[in-house]
Every structure is written in C-alpha cells, then in structure tokens.
C-alpha cells in the first residue's frame, strides 16, 4: 500500500515536472520567435531609414551643386556680355570717329553703293542729308 502510494506520488511529481518542462520550452521557443521577428522588423526599419537617408542626401547634393553651377554659369554669361558690350562701345566710338575723318566721303559712298547693290535697281538717285551740313550730290 505504501509502495503504491509512493509510486503515485512519484508519478504526480513526474507529470508535473514534465508539464513544467513543456511550459518552459514553449516559452523559450516563443521567445526565440519573438526575437527573430523583432530583429527582422528592426532590420527592415533600419534599412528604410538608410534608404531614405540616401535619397535625402542625393537631393541635398543636387540642390547644392545645381544652384552653385547655375550661379557660375550666370557669372560667365555676365562676363561675356560685359566683353561684348565693351567691344560694341569701342566699335561705336570708332564708327563715330569716321564721321569726322577724311575717310568719311569714301566710306559713305561705299556704304551707299553697297545698299544700292543690295536693292538691285537701276537709275538710283541718292540724297544724303545731315543736320547742319551742306547738301552734296555724289555720282556713282
């Protein structure tokens, strides 16, 4: 009788230990899965952060470079424009100087002839007038 009770006692405790082991093992398995899932999700989140960072970096790079390149192109255009304007002023001055030189008549005649040739008409009479100047006739 005592032996039977002892076996029953041991059986009850053995079952309890088995159940306890199962409970702990289940918890450990669930713990492992939780960690795996959580780590995978955290890694995806970290990758998203880095992907967005790279896109943002590219936008910053483009913004800095494009504005500076645009500004430098403008500086070059302004300098070229200054050069052209400078040459034009110099040319205007030189052309203006022709009017008071002894080249004036021959130059005027050449210009008029060139104009007549461009118009392509015969028997042309050209009257050139200047303020405060005598009227002159030039036969071609």
């Amino acid at each position, binding site marked *: 009788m005592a032996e039977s009770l002892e076996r029953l006692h041991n059986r009850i405790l053995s079952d309890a230990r088995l159940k306890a082991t199962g409970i702990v093992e289940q918890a450990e398995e669930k713990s492992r899965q939780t960690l795996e899932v959580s780590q995978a999700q955290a890694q995806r989140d970290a990758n998203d952060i880095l992907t967005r960072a790279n896109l943002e970096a590219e936008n910053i790079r483009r913004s800095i470079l494009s504005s500076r390149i645009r500004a430098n192109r403008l500086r070059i255009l302004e300098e070229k424009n200054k050069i052209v304007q400078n*040459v034009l002023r110099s040319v205007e001055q030189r052309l203006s100087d022709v009017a008071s030189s002894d080249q004036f008549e021959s130059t005027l005649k050449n210009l008029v002839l060139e104009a007549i040739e461009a118009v392509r008409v015969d028997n042309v009479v050209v009257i050139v007038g200047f303020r405060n100047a005598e009227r002159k006739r030039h036969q071609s």
Partner: protein
Amino acid sequence: METEGQAKRIVEDAQSRAQEILAHASQEAQRVRQTLTAEAEQRKVQILRDTREKAEADARSSDVETDSLLANYKKLFEDRKDVAAKKAVELVLGD
C-alpha cells in the same frame, strides 16, 4: 494533498519562469530594435554630413574653375579687344 501541492508549485514555478522568459525576450527585442534604429539614425546623420561636405567641396571647385575661366576671359579680352573692335569696324565699313 502535499504531493498535489508540490506538483502545483512545480507547474506554477514553470509558469512564472515562462513569464520571465517572455518578458526578457520582449525587453531584448526592444533593445535590439532601439540599437538598430539608433545605429541607422547615426549612419543617416553621417551620410547627410558627408554628402553635404562633398557637395560643398565640389561646389567650391566649380567656383574656383569659374574664377579661373573668368580670369582667362578677361585676359584674352584685354589682349584682343582692339583687334576685335577693329575687325568689327572693318566689317561694318566693308574695308
């Protein structure tokens, strides 16, 4: 009764241990998430800082290149402006 009580304690201890394991796993998951996120944020700051510095350096190179180009234009213009004006006048006058 004593045996049943002992068995019940064994199971309760196991349940308690299981709860600890799960709680620890939850804390560890949180720690891993925070670590990875913090590392990624740090890396992001570094990427943005490096990119900005590199772009600024490239922009400064562009400035230097443009300065050099402008200096060349000015020198060329100074050297050749009289010739250019003379040729333009010749073109106009047909000389």
